[in-house]
């Protein structure tokens, strides 16, 4: 990396990079394959949460009981990425480093306040909070000589429920809009909430309980719909072939309410919302 900063490129699962090469959109002189660095494929406990090596395949993370237990939001979101064949090659780190504005995982790590560990041979490691990692379309805080090595996700807080909702054109397509939500409910009222949208801006868009007017209120449909409207009103989503800005705003409104509702239901232990939350 040090030697080939400008014309070298890291190859992880290749599910984004190889298509770019095939279309002649990326033309690196050199590819550096990370596949054989065993440390990068480790998945284990980290404090109360988990540590995921950058090269852990998405499918491996999705099927890991540890991930399901310690990071249920990640487990839920992974199912929305592409198809099993692609997830079997695509990596967790690759998705974050690629920073597609419609990808699921960036929204997940921001919602969960993950820490991203990056490294360069010259300066060693540094840790970047997920909220500071994504800086625009396909751009991150990674410097030219750095790679992402590890993702550290804190364990779920008490009385907290999670959910991931998205609408895409077909199952497996990138989301037109996706919403990751975490809601804590204590003694019948909301004690905390974070949610993050994907597909609506050049990077994940975060909103927290105070901004959403959710702190201390009882979880009901009305407050979730109001939160959806409030967020949607401040979005300036992109327009493309698959949906106008206005359509995406409508999806954000609907999906924020749906995601908050199912997360809060899970926080209270009932899981009656499988129908909406599951990928089509």
């Amino acid at each position, binding site marked *: 990396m040090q030697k080939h900063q400008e014309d070298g490129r890291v190859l992880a699962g290749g599910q984004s990079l190889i298509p770019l090469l095939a279309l002649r959109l990326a033309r690196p002189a050199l590819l550096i394959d990370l596949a054989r660095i065993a440390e990068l494929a480790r998945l284990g406990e980290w404090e109360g949460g988990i540590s995921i090596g950058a090269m852990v395949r998405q499918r491996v993370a999705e099927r890991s009981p540890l991930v399901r237990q310690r990071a249920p939001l990640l487990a839920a979101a992974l199912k929305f990425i592409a198809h099993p064949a692609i997830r079997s090659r695509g990596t967790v780190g690759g998705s974050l480093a690629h920073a597609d504005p419609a990808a699921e995982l960036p929204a997940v790590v921001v919602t969960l306040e993950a820490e991203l560990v990056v490294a360069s041979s010259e300066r060693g490691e540094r840790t970047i909070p997920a909220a500071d990692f994504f800086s625009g379309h396909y751009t991150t805080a990674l410097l030219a000589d750095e790679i992402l090595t590890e993702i550290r996700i804190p364990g779920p807080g008490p009385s907290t429920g999670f959910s991931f909702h998205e609408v895409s054109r*077909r199952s*497996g397509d990138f989301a037109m809009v996706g919403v990751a939500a975490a809601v804590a409910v204590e003694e019948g009222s909301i004690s905390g909430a974070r949610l993050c949208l994907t597909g609506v801006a050049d990077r994940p868009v975060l909103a927290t309980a105070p901004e959403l007017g959710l702190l201390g209120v009882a979880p009901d449909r009305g407050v979730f719909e109001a939160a959806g409207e409030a967020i949607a009103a401040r979005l300036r989503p992109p327009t493309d072939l698959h*949906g106008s800005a206005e359509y995406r705003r409508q999806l954000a409104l609907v999906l924020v309410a749906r995601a908050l509702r199912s997360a809060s239901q899970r926080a209270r232990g009932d899981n009656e919302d499988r129908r909406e939350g599951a990928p089509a």
Partner: protein
Amino acid sequence: MAERSPVGGGGAARFVGASVQRGEDLRLLRGQGRYVDDVRLPGMLHAAFVRSPLAHARVVGVVTEAARRARGVVAVFDGEEIARLARPRASIPGGTDDGGPPVYTLLATDKVRLVGDPVALVVAESRYLAEDACELVEVRYEALPAVVSAEQALDPKSPPIFEDLGGNVIYGPTTKAYGDLAGTFARADLVVQAKISQHRQQNVPMEGRGIVASFDPETGELLVHAATQGVNTTRAALAAQLGLAAEKVRVLAGDIGGSFGLKFGISREEVACAAASRALGRPVRWIEDRGENLTVSGQAREESFEVEAAVTREGEILGMRVQMVVDAGAYPGLAPMVVDSVREMIPGPYRLQALEFSATVAVTNKASYVAYRGPWAAETFVRERMVDLVATELGLDPLEVRLRNVARRGEPPLRMVTGPPLAGITARESLERMAELIDLPEFRRRQAAARREGRYLGVGFATYLEPAPGPRSPDSPPDPGELEHQRMRLEADGTLSVFTAQMPHGQGHETTLAQIAADQFGVDWEQVRVVVGDSSLSPAGFGTGGSRFATMAGGATLHAARELRSKVLEVAAQLLDTGPERLAIVGGLVVGEGAPAGGLQLAELAAAAERGLLPVGTDSRLEAEVTFDGGESGWSGGTHCALVEVDCDTGRVRVERYLVVEDCGEMINPAIVEGQVRGGVAQGLGAVLLERSAYDPDGQYLSGSFMDYLLPTATDVPHIEIEHLETVRLDPDVNFRGVGEGGMIVAPPTLCNAIADALAPLGARITEQHLPPSRLLELIGTIGG
């Protein structure tokens, strides 16, 4: 179930009507098919095209020096150079080439007319190197305003795409009228009007276009490996284009990865490759990549219709006035022929009394109009959507309106108002059966209950006729070009070879023709070899298309097998010194009075004939040649029905059930029939929910990859329930009818009607075919648009 065919010599039918497993599948599924991409010839070179980044521009200069010097490059041809090597005027598959305007060249010379228009051809040692060199070709363009819609094209002030055309109208306006139009409108209680449109969509075969052309300078012969729907058509077009005698051109085709109408004749790029091979004396190969396929191979369906229907209060549709406008894209193609079919077919199975139909075809700076599975499908879309609009206007159930209008078999009118006979139609039966299958009253109750909970369910029907090829019309005998020729031969090893001009590209012809021949002749179907894909062996005939195969090739096979059987029995009788009427062929053996116990092997018989053991004067060539005119033929057709739920928050549509009641005559192989129906329905659902060939206002193509041209995947296609109707036999022998296009023809209106029904309480009036989620929310007013 269809009736089984009676078999003269071999006993009861054993194979026709059975879902025997396709003989081609093992080869294809194991990756052992041989496609044009698999062909490797010694000394073979690779072609890539320099293509226009602009939709409409003058070509001011093409500088190829740097590319010529690039690594691995053998030659670079610009448009002028190719024009000197081949007939400058390009032939577009299915296009009319009467020598008149517009005049244009194989590769662009003076102008480019769409994004992706080929400007230069680079031939190199590999495709990679050829593409590298393409980047070194400098083309200077002078941009012109792009004409990107028919509406713009019809504006006389729009910049002409072809200067010699005098405007951007390439056909029409033409008007034809049938019946007493004024009378029907005068008698009507109501005139229902709508502007109904189809959007641009396209054939997306798994395998794109491709050619390996190999010219031998010693013999002056051109050998071409092609992906084509007909080797003879490709041969004729290539020979004409290159100024070669047809005898000097041989076209071979192996397995073909789908086509849906795209691969007829030969395309501009393919001719250019053949011309390059001739100039270089080396094989030249070009395999279209997906970007090229989506951008320039061809597109279809973009047609709009102003419709007025004269109806009675009871829902009888008396007459229609229709104005059709086609956006035919850049280069002349199939559109005028499609206009004729749409006009003729638009009455469908209904008792329409009068029709006035006018049509205009415009050229635009978009991909050229090609045939796509059921090219004339607009007649069904427009009619079936119109029936529902009439029902809505009158407050009647759409099913009731259909039943009120659909013709009864055997009762007047015996013909569509446009002429085709309505012999043997089962449209009414298909509608009645469908209503039973879904229990319509029960659905309406469920729908009402769901609406009270804010859920939107809908049901949609559509009925169609598929001219496959349609009943014999006493006043229009079959065109000589449409006759089906076939040769059949008993080989020395006792197997049967069937030579056909058909060119299967996914339909399973190797199996279905073998089933028919086997039953008629008296052998196992595995003993029959269907020979396709070699112009030097093929009988005359244009190839596979237009849902003609089942009737035409099926019928030709049936008659050829019967004729060959008689001939073989004659020979056997000579050898065995008995009478042919005493013999039969059963299970590959000649048996009967005078035959040895255990039968005479066909191989022995063939060997005897070959060795000249027959009495002098016996015709010992164990071959039959027949020409079949289609016999009485008939319609395929039926009714489809979709039950859907629309999520009015997100605009997503879920298909709860999809049902088909259809009639394609006597089924040769029910599994193949159902595969054709399912594939067609999948494409039809894709058209409505996913697929659109989109352009921006400058004519840039927006759907150039599978990220943006969305095909239905397995998870997007619902289970499809299929029921077959009893066939009305019109011909004593041949009642197989085509089934390739019907699913794709009727699925779009079926689904649109269901969605319209679901959204009716929200005031949506649907007159378009493409209904992605965002559009549905616009139509119900949740978002602007």
